[in-house]
């Protein structure tokens, strides 16, 4: 049995490695390009949110002479103030020309009202449909509110009233998540990227070795050889598993490298994905490759052509997401019993490893054993399916 298995496995791998299209699909696009793409999108999203917090916003002030202290305060609060003179119609024209422009108009009565202690109004002109103008406007509003609150409390103090009296309730934000845990929430998708790339790695071989072999007309010859049919299919499953393991190693490494490109530290986050974690992620997901290879082979055994197999296996790729999705929606905490569910257990283990949390060895063992049991059961089922005469189609 072992020698048949080895001969079939070697031949299937050799054929797959020679097919350039397969190689690009299985070992480049899935495991290497997909995570890079994912990280790139994440990076862009991060870069945008970084800029809104730190960047100084430009603001144009009209009639600044009416409120010199006010304008100076805006400058000190990090706004890029430029002065310009014009009527209301001019302001509207300026914004028409430059959509993200925010203009503050200081009415002539500003100084008088301010000195009298009455609310002094300024008019803020901005294009509400422009997202940049919205961001700048928010920064300007923030700066004015800060200045206004400061002056307000100074006035109260001058009248012998404690400023705290106008703050009946205050909010203290206390974020209890560790930096890594925060990153993991955002990077939670990554475990699915890893599982999917692993599956994709073996997809082509699984189809080609079963439905493909039947469609091309080489299966019948193969079945006339003096070997047990089950051993042939076990060899094919083994080859698919090997491709998936290669793909898994690639995707784990690629994720590790791409994460370095993320400015996570800016947010006080760290993603724990060094070489030690790459290795552990590989070990945690490896048993899942057997389950995946066997599922794909079983499904492909029912189909008659490469195309038909492809469309069915597209559905199969969704199966591993189901437990992960249910667990995320219900917000289920990791526990030992969940380690019995393949794909969910891998997801939770990857998450735990990325968070840098200590994981019980028993969990990893449970996850491994349950995957191996299910994988071998499915491989046995694939063997049974290959005994049927209908396999010839």
């Amino acid at each position, binding site marked *: 049995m072992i020698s*048949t298995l080895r*001969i*079939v496995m070697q*031949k299937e791998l*050799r*054929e*797959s490695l*020679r*097919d350039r299209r397969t190689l690009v699909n299985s070992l480049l696009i899935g495991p290497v390009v997909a995570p890079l793409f994912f990280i790139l999108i994440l990076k862009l999203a991060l870069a945008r949110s970084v800029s809104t917090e730190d960047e100084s916003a430009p603001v144009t002030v009209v009639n600044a002479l009416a409120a010199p202290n006010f304008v100076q305060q805006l400058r000190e609060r990090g706004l890029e103030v430029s002065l310009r003179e014009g009527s209301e119609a001019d302001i509207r024209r300026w914004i028409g020309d430059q959509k993200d422009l925010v203009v503050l108009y200081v009415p002539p009565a500003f100084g008088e009202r301010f000195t009298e202690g009455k609310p002094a109004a300024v008019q803020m002109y901005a294009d509400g449909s422009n997202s940049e103008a919205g961001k700048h406007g928010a920064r300007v509003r923030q700066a004015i509110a800060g200045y206004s609150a400061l002056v307000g409390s100074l006035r109260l103090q001058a009248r012998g009233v404690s400023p705290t009296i106008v703050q009946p309730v205050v909010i203290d934000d206390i974020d209890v998540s560790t930096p890594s845990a925060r990153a993991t929430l955002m990077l939670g998708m990554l475990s699915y990227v890893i599982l999917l790339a692993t599956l994709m790695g073996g997809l082509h071989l699984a189809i080609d070795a079963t439905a493909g072999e039947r469609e*091309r*007309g*080489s299966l*019948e*010859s*193969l*079945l*006339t*050889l*003096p*070997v*047990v049919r089950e051993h042939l299919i076990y060899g094919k499953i083994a080859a698919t598993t090997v491709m998936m393991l290669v793909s898994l190693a690639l995707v784990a490494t690629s994720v590790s490298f791409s994460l370095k490109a993320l400015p996570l530290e800016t947010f006080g986050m760290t993603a724990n994905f060094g070489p030690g974690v790459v290795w552990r992620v590989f070990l945690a997901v490896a048993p899942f490759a057997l389950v995946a290879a066997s599922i794909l082979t079983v499904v492909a055994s029912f189909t008659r052509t490469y195309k038909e197999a492809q469309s069915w296996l597209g559905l199969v790729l969704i199966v591993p997401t189901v437990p992960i999705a249910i667990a995320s929606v219900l917000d289920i905490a990791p526990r030992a019993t969940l380690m019995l569910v393949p794909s969910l257990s891998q997801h939770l283990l990857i998450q735990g490893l990325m968070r840098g949390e200590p994981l019980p060895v028993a969990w990893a063992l449970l996850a491994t054993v349950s995957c191996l049991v299910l994988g071998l059961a499915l491989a046995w089922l694939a063997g049974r399916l290959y005994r049927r*005469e209908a396999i*010839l189609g």
Partner: protein
Amino acid sequence: MIRVEGLSRSFGAVRAVDGVAFEAGDGRITGLLGPNGAGKSTTLRVLYTVLRPDSGTASIDGVDVVGDPLATRRCIGVLPHGANIYPQLTARENIAYFGRLHGLEGAALDERVESLVGELDIGGYANRRAKGYSQGERIKVALARALVHAPKNLLLDEPTNGLDVMATRALRALILRLRAAGHCILFSSHVMQEVAALCDDIVIVDKGRVVAAGTPGALKAQFKSETLEDAFVAAIGDARGLE
């Protein structure tokens, strides 16, 4: 030596093979002749153990086909209908893969592959990947693959399908050489001329039954016909399947 007795096999309500019986001797070429759908392929598939018969027995070199399929497969070389080879492997690798699964390895395997490449005149393209092969080249490699373990018995299902004249002639020459070497060759065809040109014995099947069997001479005598073609028409009752 192939012996078939009372072989039947149905697919649902269709009786594809219905009590077929014949013998194919060593050193002889036996042709299964009949129109499309007569049950030729089903009979061969039972013999090369991918289908089980509903009833009846078959043996190859004394090995019961149903009782011991693994031993049966060791003593047969098979070219199934429309057989194809692996497109990403070279001819040599295609042949060697089957050799390995037959338990050959090392120098013995290399030697065997080499001698087949020479014998079947595959040398010109033996190290090229099979995806660009012509139909004739593919059939030759598939045949070499079937011969890799030097089986005594050969089962060929419509081997000349899709071959041009030159390739057909080459294949005929090869089959004749194998007969001279003492092999038992059973092949199916729906082409009258094919069978007439090659076969020592002819088994005419129609609707799953053997309607006549014997040497070409005996068949002509039995149906009092001048030609084998007339004998065929007389045997199956009309001219279906003649080309």
